[in-house]
């Protein structure tokens, strides 16, 4: 592993272990992500990709090792957890918008309550980000009235409204139809070009090639391969990686 130990790392994961009961879901995972770096995580189903990124904002609790986010260690300290969650945005496979709030309210609620922003400011920010994900005209609709691609872009806007320093994506496009995948990936590419620190679990290899600084391959709860995209796609060393790539790219 070439995890750099600079103090400025956005996320540093050291010797991470995670169990579900007796099931060993993550085995000694080490990963360091610099500020502004874009990481793409891939691997077969059940390899622990979701578990790993969900540990970063403590949606899952790790059992061993250390996770440091923006210099703060993630432990049982509630203050640390809250502080980290404020700075780390997350986008989910199934969007998880609040169905009883309008698009605008979805985007305003956390800034107003967590960041104590005045209403006018929160609304202005929300409208700015909705513009950015190219759905300003949907602001007063409810999530159930939008297409999947639109919902996912709202979810991205909602996370961005907290003005986080790091964004986590857990298979943001795998619940979408092909024509909607492009519109969501476009937004993510723009975000990447603006210097956001991103950790994306995705099987969109075109996206990985375009924006990733490093691609990480996981299998059986371990990181098996870690390389810049050109190297990853052309000359990966590991047999399992090659097999996986032939499946994902093969058709």
């Amino acid at each position, binding site marked *: 592993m070439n995890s750099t130990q600079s103090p400025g790392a956005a996320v540093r994961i050291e010797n991470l272990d995670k169990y579900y009961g007796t099931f060993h879901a993550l085995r000694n995972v080490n990963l360091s992500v610099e500020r502004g770096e874009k990481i793409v995580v891939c691997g077969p189903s059940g390899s622990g990709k979701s578990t790993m990124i969900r540990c970063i904002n403590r949606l899952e609790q790790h059992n061993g090792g250390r996770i440091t986010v923006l210099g703060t260690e993630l432990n049982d300290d509630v203050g640390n957890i809250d502080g980290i969650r404020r700075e780390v945005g997350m986008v*989910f496979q199934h969007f998880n918008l609040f169905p009883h709030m309008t698009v605008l*309210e979805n985007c305003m609620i956390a800034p107003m309550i967590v960041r104590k922003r005045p209403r006018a400011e929160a609304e202005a920010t929300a409208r700015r980000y909705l513009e950015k994900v190219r759905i300003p005209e949907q602001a007063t609709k409810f999530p159930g*009235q939008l297409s999947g691609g639109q919902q996912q872009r709202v979810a991205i806007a909602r996370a961005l409204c907290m003005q986080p320093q790091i964004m986590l994506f857990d298979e943001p496009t795998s619940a979408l139809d092909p024509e909607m995948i492009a519109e969501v990936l476009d937004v993510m590419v723009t975000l990447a070009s603006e210097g956001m620190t991103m950790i994306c679990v995705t099987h969109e290899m075109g996206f990985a090639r375009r924006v990733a600084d490093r691609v990480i391959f996981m299998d059986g709860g371990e990181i098996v391969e870690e390389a810049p995209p050109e190297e990853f796609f052309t000359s990966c060393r590991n047999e399992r990686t090659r097999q996986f790539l032939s499946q994902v790219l093969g058709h």
Partner: protein
Amino acid sequence: MISLLRNQKVRNALLQVFYVGSLAALVLAGVVIARRNLAEQGITSGFDFLYKSTGWDVSFSLLPVTANDPYWWFFLIGIINTLFLGSIGLLLATVVGTVVGLARTSSNELARLLGRTYVDIFRNIPLILQAFFWYAIITHLPTPRAAHEAWGMLLTSRGLYLPAPNVGGVAMALAILPLFAAVALPVWLGRTSRLSRPVGERLVIQLAGIAAALACAVLILIVGRLPDAPLLDFPALQGLNLKGGLRIPPEFSALAVAIAIYGGSYIAEIVRGGFKAVGKGQVEAALSLGLSPWRVFTLVKLPLALRAMLPILANQYVWLIKATTMGIAVGFTDFFMIVALTINHSGQTLEAIGILMAGFLTINLSLAAVFNRINKAIALKGNQLRG
């Protein structure tokens, strides 16, 4: 002609005509037979008896009543008693159900166990047994001379004595309106100002709304108070008995407690189901935005759980209102008991049963209509299927 019979719309129409026709014939035959039988027994049918005085008394009434009052007044008293018992019972059952239901969804193992035990026990004992049980307990409380006292209330084997306002009937009825507003106003304010005001400011406006409505109610009570009497009439011992205040008879308390505890066990399951129906994804999204567990509860879990609960809760409420007819078992003069007494004394069986059914239908259909409106107002917009 043949081709007309093969037309689907014509066929459906004919079927409808046939169905309605046979139903009407059945009802008509029933009425004719009943009238003939009644005539043979020397009972005149019709609703004239409503204006005759009853000649008997009721043990509990929120309105003034004597044996000289006519039947229709007694029916009104019965309906009001049923509504009074129903609303107190439902309110208490909802409180109990919410507490137990939340305990059942809590992460605390002991709370979950207690909640489960509660539901298992009280849901499986028939309501009528529970009513008898509480009635026995309450009638074995101390006599008035040794009454338990707390905040001006007296707890005795003859009932619960509450301080009552010395206020005329009209003012009392008028004061109910602002009380109603105190409940409705914050909901309405909350809905209309949802987008235009921050949460903190909205809360202030809602509290101000409640305070204004309550002040209005108190004002009406003070203005409408009986001359030369203190605003509140406290119960006190006079000789061997208690005088003054409002006496809630043991029959009422036993039923209210039984409905609260029995209904609470059902409502607890509804509450639990409602919270289980809240998507894990929405909760995780809220947490990942940095919202505190309390905020996640009030902003995401509770509103979504309520939407899942309301339709089933409405059913349960309708069911519990009907269960108030259990009052006859312990001798509470609810609507059903008044009807039963009417049948005994006047022999107007069909009319009285008709009034009983119409009364309960009206109560329960109104309740259902209110819930339907609420459901519609808060229904999630759009298609909720994902993926």
